């Protein structure tokens, strides 16, 4: 049995957020920012080198150098088609890069160690037709080697308000309930890095609050979070903001320094 954790210099509990080598720098927007400084210190939670994706001749993501330190909480924003989902899917291993490389916690994307480290909450929840929420939780937790998963599952289900529906088939749920079920599945297993794509879509107030609380708890425990969202009100919670436009990074810095409205307008102007 290999233990990916043993390869790393710091445990999650002792990992200090200040240890990241990519502390966001205030930069004027929407000037494109390159963050290709030489890696130093512990391995980054996420690191991309010239990572690019093309669909046929159409570029979805231009070569991207990105370093996200362990314990950072990132908001990823951008207009529709800006490359957020493409970037996330490449990091999780569902899409193959056209060029470049990327690592998760020091391991190549798609490798067994990277898969153990990264949890992905997709924009479109997917479930087995014939398994209940509880069965999903059981198998996902066990496939990630978690023996003692039941208390965690009960807490999660209770938190998002799904306790009464835990023995129902999630494929029969409404969009919002599906999103809540997917949330519990993303959090029931251990992870170092969580990639979340449009998590607020379809969620009611209770769901949004539960999600924000879960994110805060996970971040507090040292996890690295990358949240792609159009919900600009949630951006202020993050420690760093990355904005994409037409497959390029147009802003990388502190959320407080960003004029979000101008940034999204700027992104559109860039495209035209």
């Amino acid at each position, binding site marked *: *049995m*290999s*233990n*990916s*954790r043993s390869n790393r210099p710091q*445990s*999650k*509990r002792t990992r200090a957020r200040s240890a990241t080598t990519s502390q966001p720098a205030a930069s004027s927007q929407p000037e494109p920012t390159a963050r290709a400084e030489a890696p130093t210190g512990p391995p980054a939670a996420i690191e991309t080198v010239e990572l690019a994706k093309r669909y*046929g001749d159409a570029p979805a993501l231009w070569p991207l150098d990105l370093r996200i330190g362990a314990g950072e909480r990132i908001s990823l924003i951008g207009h529709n088609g800006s490359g957020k989902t493409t970037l996330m899917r490449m990091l*999780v*291993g*569902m*899409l*193959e890069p056209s060029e470049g490389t990327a690592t998760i*916690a020091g391991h190549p994307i*798609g490798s*067994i*160690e990277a*898969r*153990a*480290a990264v949890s*992905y909450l*997709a924009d479109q929840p*997917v*479930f*087995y*037709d*014939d*398994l209940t929420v509880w*069965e*999903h939780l059981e*198998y*996902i937790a*066990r*496939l*990630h*080697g*978690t023996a003692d998963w039941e208390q*965690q599952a009960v*807490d*999660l289900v209770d*938190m998002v308000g799904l306790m009464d529906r835990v023995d129902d088939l999630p494929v029969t749920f409404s969009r919002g309930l599906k999103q809540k079920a997917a949330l519990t*599945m993303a*959090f029931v297993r*251990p*992870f*170092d890095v969580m990639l979340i794509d449009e998590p607020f879509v379809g969620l009611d107030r209770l769901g949004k609050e539960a999600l924000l*609380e*879960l994110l805060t*708890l*996970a971040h*507090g*425990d*040292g*996890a690295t979070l990358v949240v792609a969202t159009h919900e600009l009100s949630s951006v202020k919670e993050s420690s760093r903001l990355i904005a994409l436009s037409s497959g390029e990074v147009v802003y990388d810095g502190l959320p407080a320094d960003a004029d979000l409205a101008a940034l999204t307008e700027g992104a559109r102007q860039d495209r035209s």
Partner: protein
Amino acid sequence: MSSDAFAEPVVVPDQRTSKATLNDLRKTRQRRRLGDTDWYDIAYRVYLFGLVGLTLVVWVSDAVDGAIGDGIDSADLLARGPSIVGLLVVAAFALGVRSGADGGPVAIEVADIRHVLLSPISRRSVMLRPVAQRLRAAAFALGLGGAVLGQLIATEVEGSRTAWAAACGAFGAIVGVTFVATAVIAHTLRVPRWLATMLAALALVWQGAVAWGIWHDETTGWQRVAPGNLAGRLALWGVDQRPVDVIAIVIAMAMTAAALLLGGQLRLEALVRRGELVSQLRFAATVQDLRTVVQLRRQLRSEMLRTRPWGQRRRPTRPPPTVLAHGRASATAASTADSSDWSPSASVIWRRDSRSLRRLPGARFFRIALLGAIGGVGAALTISASPLFGLVLLGALFFAGLESLEPLSQEIDRPDLTDGIPIERGWIYAHHLVASAILLVFVGVTGAAVAVLVDPDIGAMAFAVAIPMVWAGAMGPVVVTMLDAPTAPSPTTLLGTPRDAETSLVPPEFAGFSTALRTLLPVLISAIGTVPVFVARFADDAASVGRSLVALVLFTTIVVLWVRRRDPWGLKLRNFFEEGRAASA
């Protein structure tokens, strides 16, 4: 939740535990599926399938006796047969390498990709079962088909039925395994599409050239060596067994082992795309929706329409927004003013359809031309060799029609857009047939040229009958497509019985029969397009062929008129029945 709820260390779990969990998951799901299964229904289907299948085999066995040709010489068969039969294995290789380059042949549930393949578990152990299932299914289906064909062949040549069924069954299984294993290997080796096409073409040309040379006794020694010969010879074990042919089985087993070993390296990106499409494809196949099946197969091959139509050099220049706004305003004002004497222009539909066809990818044009060529070969051999080749001609006519009807399909698949246009639906549908008819002219000319190449005696007659034939052959696909068009909703049938009541009273035998009829009807309609070829074979005089041609044109006209007037004719028919019922009451 506690403050350290997510502080559990991340570890790669022990693979034996993970595999046990995966097996657990699969067993739970299997148990549930079996629990939900209606065993009586399955037993009934197996009974029906067995009964119909057996009757069909016996009937075809009698019908085929002497149709291929009496007195086939075994020595001649053993000399010329392997290279020709081997074409099937090479075709399986060609299709497999192309399928692999397109991301085939395995498809798994998207939920399995999201929850299992993204988990820290060995992908080889996850993919072993889906790859093995695909190999097993292909080997079984083609093995069964081969065995049935083998016992049919036994009626024409030397050798027992059992021996022929076993030999052809084994050959069919090899063809199936070759397709799947080649596709898996090509997929995992990331063979680019251009290379796959080259390899496929090379193998087919090699085998084809050797078969041609042997058939005409023009080659000797090494010139007779081709990749599919050993497997092809295995299919003839009903007559004579040669130990060296076992090498074909060994190669197939080695390819199977390689595919099983490499299964874990199948690309996730392709699996995601296929997983989403294949579930739709299975549903379409379940409800016998042939048109949707063909459309989804195109998507599985990543066959996208071109952004820029063929023949268009530059992107069209758009007028500036102010001009466009002015133009729109003027057009709206004009249309309002002249609405009383406004009539639709056929040129609008023509422009839209010509662009639609010019956006078809090169591969689709190649496929349409290939179908034309196959139809030509089928027609020539129907006249000169055996009427069984009429089936090849029929298949080519039907699928060439289906491939050419893109404009009509686009319209019918978007009924809301059609109903938003203040023009009678039938008028739009009928005008969409013009562009497809022009494309089919090229199919007909290609087919005629190939038919003349195969049998020069056919001569000018081929060109005279080809175009009406492909048009008439396309009427089956036209009917298939039109059956998807919306109709005026009505709670009762023409006879006045509620629709629900009628369907609930139909016994399963008749329900199954009507489903089969609905599936076969378009093919039967296309079969009318083959009539001139059969007339040429059996009557063999120009006047009879000419008369069949007139009948074909008449038939095509009637179907086009039906497309144009379907709604008013349907309404008249319904009124007629309702008036009759009212009078009798």
